[in-house]
């Protein structure tokens, strides 16, 4: 099915690209022909409700699960056939806290991890441990979700990968630590040219970082655009209309939300602002305001759409 929203970012150089990526668990379809495109150097926010297929997509990218169909390429490498090389160049923060080796002490786990990554920077790892207040003597299995997440961040960042795949990275973190980690992430991105693919259903927490966004629902990629384009083209229009005005049908599926009183109506419309305003005026409406949505509002609007719109 063709999305009415933009989904093509192929004009950019891509760090991650998938083509017709599908995944089924038995008869349940978790991913349906996903064409994910993450430009190199972007901070790409993959948003969607629980069960949308975000984690499945990320796991396929690191070959933890195999797709039912389609192809995934990461940093120009085949995610399946060159998985080891992908792993060497990717920092992955999983969505689960208990990720294995629970019997090790945290410090020993980091040593163990270091042995597998020739590009591991011990001084950077030590700095991150200090920043994240990691208790090196604690047994991994006894760590809370937030503590485990911090350890995973060190493991993902310290070998300075070219791509970060962060699956619900802020989940389980307290607000203070969330701030600390976001700060560390910003610093890391400033120091090391890194592409980030971050999946979350809490957009507001990472809104400031993102420059691209992909919206997933029910295993499908609904939209995939630069954040700037979304802010430019997805606007909330407020207009005065005559009684019994029928002009909204002009915009068809581009109208994502309609609200307001009898004579003053609000529309959330995806389209070029001048064109939409002109159409509204032609139809007899007087546009009073056209305001961009926050990223969270925009994604919520997209996610709350009736599926029949597609």
């Amino acid at each position: 099915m063709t999305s009415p929203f933009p989904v093509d970012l192929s004009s950019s150089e891509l760090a991650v690209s998938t083509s017709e990526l599908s995944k089924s668990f038995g008869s349940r379809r978790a991913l349906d022909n996903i064409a994910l495109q993450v430009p190199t150097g972007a901070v790409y926010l993959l948003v969607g409700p629980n069960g949308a297929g975000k984690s499945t997509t990320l796991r396929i990218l690191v070959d933890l699960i195999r797709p039912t169909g389609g192809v995934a390429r990461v940093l120009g490498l085949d995610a399946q056939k060159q998985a080891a090389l992908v792993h060497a160049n990717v920092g992955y923060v999983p969505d689960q806290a208990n990720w294995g080796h629970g019997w090790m002490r945290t410090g020993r786990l980091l040593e163990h991890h270091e042995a597998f990554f020739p590009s591991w920077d011990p001084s950077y790892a030590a700095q991150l441990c200090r920043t994240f207040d990691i208790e090196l003597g604690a047994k991994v299995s006894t760590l809370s979700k937030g503590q485990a997440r911090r350890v995973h961040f060190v493991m993902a960042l310290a070998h300075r990968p070219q791509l970060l795949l962060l699956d619900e990275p802020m989940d389980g973190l307290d607000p203070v630590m969330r701030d600390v980690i976001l700060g560390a992430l910003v610093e890391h991105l400033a120091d090391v040219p890194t592409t980030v693919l971050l999946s979350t259903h809490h957009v507001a927490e990472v809104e400031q970082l993102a420059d691209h966004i992909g919206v997933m629902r029910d295993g499908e990629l609904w939209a995939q655009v630069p954040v700037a384009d979304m802010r430019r083209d997805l606007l909330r229009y407020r207009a005065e209309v005559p009684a019994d005005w029928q002009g909204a049908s002009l915009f068809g599926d581009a109208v994502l939300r309609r609200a307001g009183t009898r004579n003053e109506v609000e529309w959330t419309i995806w389209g070029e602002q001048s064109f939409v305003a002109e159409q509204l005026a032609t139809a007899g409406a007087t546009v009073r305001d056209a305001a961009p949505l926050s990223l969270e509002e925009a994604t919520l609007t997209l996610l709350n759409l009736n599926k029949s719109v597609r």
Partner: protein
Amino acid sequence: MTSVALHALPRWRTVAREQLRAVGLRSRVGGLALITLLGVLMVLVVRASLRARSLEVSRLASPTFDIESGAWTPVAAVVAVLFAFAMWREEDPDRRSYHWMMPVAPHVHTLTRVLAGWVWLLAATAVSLATVASIAALSSMITGRPQPNAGFALWWMLPLTSATVAYFLASAATVGTRQPILWVFGVILLYSSSLLGLEVLGYRDTHDVVRAALTGDYGITAALAGDIERMDTAQLRMVPSLQRWFGASIVWGGLGVLLVVTASYRRAEPTVIHEHGLFRRAIVGHTRLVASVIALSAAAGVVATRVARPEYEARATIWNEPRPTERMAMEIRSARTQVVGEPRALFASSRIVDTVVRRLALYVRPDNAADTSLLRNFSIADRFMPADFRLAVDDRGTRWSLRAVDNRQISDSGVAGDSVGRDYGLRWRPEPAMLARFAGREVGFSLGTPRLAAVDLFARLSIVQPASRAFLQLALSDPDPQRAARTLNALTSAYVEEMHRRGMTRSVLDSAVAPALPYKNSSAQVLSTWLIAGVVVSIGLAFAASALEERMQHA
């Protein structure tokens, strides 16, 4: 993005070293436990040895602690299995994400870890053996008595290879399956059930082949428990067999490695749909189908019990160990006769089976086993006509008439005391008293060639000679239990006589007795087989129907 310089992969040596360290670290609690156990053992043995010496038990033949007790080999195997399970504890394939996220090919990574575990296992086993040997030496020193069989170097290899085989087999289960313990017990249960089933159903040859995997010369018992003894005919004592040890270790160790390598390629993914309750859904959703198939199979089973002829099995044992004085003569003779050491060939020869067939007139078979007594004096001329015959006895039991089944005309007739069927080549004169007991009846019997009867007899004869044992176990199946015992006893006697004729002394340890219960095709066996088959088929059909319905729903 391809232009960007990528980070390099780690060197295998680095990975292997780290795995070795990690596995060692993970095993430290087990290692400490082992050291403690060995320490406790040493204390106990020293204490017992000191007590033995102070009591001056002069008749004590061996020291308090015997290194050749044979217990160390299975202990090493059990420890190896536990170690393999512990290595992957909480890391079943569904929870191995971290392991698979490392920048190493997953199967290489897995195999490296398995190898690292193996190195530690061998080290631990070697240390344990060295400690055990030290304890044994200490015990000998204190008591002043030497170890009885300390000279066999192979005893020291056994725990190492046994642990290796057990470790790789168990690792295959832990690496490749979500529930390794369930799998291991499942395989054991399935194997045991198969053995039992084959025995109950009377597939003796298949049973013996399947059983060989357990207790055969190169069976898993030889590999894991060190059951590799053979009789040293020169010293007349059991000694370890290098050939059996090597063969069993290679076979089972090779299988273990093959399974581990195969398992290391396995990718497990979270299974989302309907895994739980699948069985219940299939069965509960198709109760009518299941019940119908089981009812049908039960009905078929009842019919089958009417048709199937029960088979009985008689057993006997022959002591087959040559006396030391015979050995040299045997070895010289064996070069010429080729029968020594090959009892099966000797039994198959005309010397044994053909002799017994002629002696017991096994070429003639009554249609009804109860009529055997009438054929007691039956024999044949050099030329005779194989056929199915009917002998009719008049109501007074004084006259008889004989005809071949495919010929309605009476071919021969006479009175009690006359020879029967002389024209057919029969040498048979039923006693008048015996004939009188069959008054008013028609007795059917089949006459075949002695050679064919001998071939059939040999086919029903099972000869087992355990590798390290000095006896032959014989079993013979027959629809008539009395005839089975009689024939088998004749066979064992013929064998002993033939060996005696060749200058070798053999004796019958256990003579055959007529079995009371059939070993095959009894009503209970036939019915239960049909019922089990019905249950299995019904469950299979229920699963197939369930899968088909699901597929159609989601099509």
